[in-house]
């Protein structure tokens, strides 16, 4: 029932830009649709909150607590970004940067993109998950190259080539994976819910290979280093709302797909050590991204590296595997989605006001764009894990997890990387917000107030999250943790 409603909603949202000429209407429909989607997701959350999963259409769609977390992220970031896009696209058209046609094209692709993500989170079919991921690649490739110029085309090309290869490897992995279960009922083997319960594949050897392929392949899409190379380019060149969506949601979702396979793999006797894939790639991501953050000249690029870092943190948390750490990882994926979207959207505001992505060209934001400056600082605090924002807890739980399981070296490495990231962020954002060149007059900019609502929404949701930490949120995440750990 809900699934059908969702499908119809998305159909309407996707078709509106194709049918109607009025861009405003499209924007409204998108926002309205996003609100309805969020409402439905909330309804689904209440249905699932008891712990028992829902399934529709012969278990083709399957919603448990783990997917609920993803659904929540997608739906809420979607509405925030939709609101942002409304103003953003309007401005771009007003300033004659893009044509009306491209504006409509944007909405078409954007809604398609969200549809695919929703599809990944809802589906139970493991190959369908892959199809969803591939679909996001297809739609976002154009979104990244949206402003057709040298930089964006280069990044889009990199994105499409690297991600397609990754996804292709992932598909090979999935094929081998499925093949390893060929002893089971043919109509059931593509269903995750079935595989998670039956842990007796034909050969564990091919499961090993398959999982590695899936991990590396889809890990490319999730932005784990050293397969992350597309990410900084793509995220820095895409329009800011798209970067927010990709960084906050898409990366998470790719990791979620890996996690689905990991849950199956983990239950097979003798394969528990596959968790080291998470840990090693998490650590490599952490190291590479944290060092890279230190010397960036482009703030959007820096945020992109921070996404790599956060993916590393989440992967590490999942890999460490103790309940505390997994809780931390899931919580972190939630916080990161909101925090990073907030930062990217703020960066978008700054970009549209200053027309430059270079850090050294922007000074004294607190004078020129005070509201955005405040959100930038808040976002920085959120993303670097400062209390009372939930990222502090999530990062801390992962530390606790590493200590608990005795991986002291990883604890040290992890903390060191957190420190580096913190230093890098601090250096840049404090410089952007507060640095005052002597003798320069800083006047308040008009653009400051234009697109504040989505930022405020992001921040409010983060605050709500910290308030709900003890109750609702933690019970929801705990349900998800029990799916992973038990």
């Amino acid at each position, binding site marked *: 029932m809900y699934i059908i409603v969702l499908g119809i909603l998305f159909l309407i949202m996707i078709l509106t830009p194709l049918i109607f000429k009025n861009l405003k209407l499209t924007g409204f429909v998108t926002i309205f649709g996003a609100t309805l989607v969020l409402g439905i997701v909330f309804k689904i959350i209440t249905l699932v909150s008891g712990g028992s999963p829902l399934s529709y259409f012969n278990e083709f769609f399957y919603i448990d607590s783990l997917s609920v977390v993803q659904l929540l992220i997608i739906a809420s970031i979607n509405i925030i970004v939709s609101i942002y896009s409304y103003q953003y696209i309007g401005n771009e058209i007003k300033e004659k940067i893009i044509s009306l046609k491209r504006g409509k094209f944007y909405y078409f692709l954007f809604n398609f993109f969200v549809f695919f993500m929703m599809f990944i989170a809802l589906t139970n*079919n493991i190959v369908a998950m892959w199809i969803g991921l591939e679909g996001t690649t297809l739609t976002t490739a154009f979104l990244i190259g949206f402003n057709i110029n040298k930089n964006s085309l280069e990044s889009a*090309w990199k994105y499409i080539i690297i991600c397609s290869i990754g996804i292709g490897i992932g598909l090979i992995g999935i094929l081998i994976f499925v093949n390893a279960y060929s002893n089971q009922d043919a109509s059931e083997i593509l269903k995750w819910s079935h595989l998670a319960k039956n842990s007796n594949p034909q050969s564990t050897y091919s499961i090993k290979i398959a999982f590695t392929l899936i991990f590396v392949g889809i890990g490319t899409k999730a932005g784990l280093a050293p397969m992350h190379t597309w990410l900084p380019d793509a995220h820095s060149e895409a329009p800011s709302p798209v970067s927010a969506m990709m960084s906050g949601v898409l990366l998470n979702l790719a990791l979620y797909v890996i996690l689905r396979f990991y849950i199956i793999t983990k239950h097979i006797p003798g394969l528990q050590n596959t968790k080291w894939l998470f840990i090693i790639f998490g650590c490599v991501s952490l190291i590479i991204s944290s060092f890279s953050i230190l010397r960036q000249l482009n703030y959007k690029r820096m945020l992109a590296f921070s996404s790599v870092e956060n993916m590393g943190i989440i992967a590490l948390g999942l890999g460490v595997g103790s309940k505390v750490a997994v809780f931390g990882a899931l919580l972190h994926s939630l916080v990161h989605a909101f925090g990073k979207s907030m930062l990217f959207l703020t960066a978008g505001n700054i970009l549209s006001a200053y027309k430059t992505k270079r850090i050294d060209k922007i000074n004294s934001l607190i004078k020129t764009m005070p509201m955005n400056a405040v959100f930038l600082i808040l976002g920085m605090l959120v993303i670097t894990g400062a209390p009372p924002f939930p990222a502090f807890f999530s990062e801390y739980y992962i530390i606790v997890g590493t200590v608990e399981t005795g991986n002291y070296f990883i604890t040290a490495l992890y903390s060191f990387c957190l420190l580096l990231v913190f230093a890098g962020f601090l250096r840049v954002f404090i410089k952007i917000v507060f640095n005052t060149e002597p003798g320069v007059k800083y006047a308040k900019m008009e653009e400051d107030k234009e697109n504040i609502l989505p930022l405020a929404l992001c921040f409010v949701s983060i605050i709500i999250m910290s308030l709900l930490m003890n109750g609702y949120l933690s019970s929801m995440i705990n349900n998800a943790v029990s799916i992973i750990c038990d």
Partner: protein
Amino acid sequence: MIEALLTIILISSIFMSGFRRIKLITAGFIFQSAAIGLIVLKLGYETGKVDYYILGILTIVTKVIIIPLIINKSVKKLKINREMELIVNGFVSYIITGIGIMIAFGILNKSQDNFLKTGIALFIIGVLLMVARKKAITQMIGFLIFENGIVLFETSLSKMSLVIEAGIVFEGLMLALIMGIMIFHINRTFDSINTDFFENLKE
């Protein structure tokens, strides 16, 4: 019959790894895709499953007709005929391909599944083309070879429903389309499709 087709695939792909002329590579690709399509159809004939027929037809339609058309169109517009500077020259490419295939077959020596082995050979050649060539269009063809490998894999391993298979193939087509469009844009903005010009995003 299948053995002969597999041979065609292997030979064409090994030659493709050293070709410089894009038209030749495209031709190789067409041969390869056609062979794969035929194999799938043959399998369908043998097993009597509708899935195989549809997969085979889809493969032939997209990879033998549509994608080569896109490529040719781009090539005509772009006036590029050949790879000028190779990162790994033809001679070495052949050797690498040979060694790679040898190792892959060596690892899989216990398996009797020739599809699998051929698929892996295709992966290796696809990757080689993507890594060792500079033109965006060659990279695209490399990726398509890679995808052909996936199709071979699929036929050998999977038992999926039709919708899913169609989805996979359809998305392959979409990807090729998007790549083609992108190459077109790239050529227009960069005046070249050489990936050497992709250096703007260095900080």
